[in-house]
């Protein structure tokens, strides 16, 4: 039995955010914005979705100079991302497995 897809992570930009964060301990907001090539507001929206799901945490260290926001995957986020990647690999290895889009089509 394959791992389930995670609807929160499945969106392309959020998948890329999670892939980057999973490879690092913490990442500065501007680096993620550069990775995706999107506006601050778009990135903030995606991070809010991930934060509401409990998948990312954000910190703003205090100190002199411009305050930068640092983003990390939570333990729950790392587990969810690992499950999602397992599901992708399973789909890639066995293309007959249903994707989330197939489930939505079937329901609609």
């Amino acid at each position, binding site marked *: 039995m394959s791992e389930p897809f995670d609807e929160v992570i499945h969106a392309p930009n959020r998948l*890329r955010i999670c892939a*980057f964060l999973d490879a*690092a301990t*913490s*990442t*500065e907001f501007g680096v993620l914005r550069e990775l995706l090539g999107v506006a601050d507001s778009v990135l903030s929206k995606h991070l809010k979705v991930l934060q509401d799901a409990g998948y990312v945490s954000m910190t703003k260290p205090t100190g002199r100079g411009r305050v930068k926001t640092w983003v990390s995957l939570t333990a729950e986020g790392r587990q969810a991302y690992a499950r999602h990647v397992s599901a992708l690999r399973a789909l890639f290895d066995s*293309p007959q*497995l249903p*994707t989330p889009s197939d489930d939505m089509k079937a329901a609609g």
Partner: protein
Amino acid sequence: MESNAAEQLAAIADARAAVADRLVTPWWYHPVLGLLVGAYVVAFGLGNSAARLAAGVCFAGGCVLLVKAYRRRTGVWVSGLDAGRAGRWAIAMGVMLGIIALAAVAVGRYSDLRWPVWALAAAGFTGTVLLGRQFDKALRAQLRAAA
């Protein structure tokens, strides 16, 4: 479906490669860390309890400042504990530091010789630079290898 999964796996691989591209350690990072290790070892081997305590505080403070400088420069931080297989090099560095510090204490306590402590400090410096660079290399290769 299969191509969609392939595209997503490719996007993941690209994101991981982007992390590897970001992790360009400044040339001074490991030598400065090595100097902190060397100073710590000398204080541990030749100093009294107060000097050892001060050295421990300075070492910890120096490491925090070094990490801050690295994070500010790269925008990314990967802890040795989050580095997967590459983390073995970071663990090796920690073990090396422990052994060298204990050896320095033993030399300081049971011998009047000073040069072995300086030799241990030099070994700590060299080991830190070599193992640190090896950690970076292994981590970047690991990030580029697979999603």
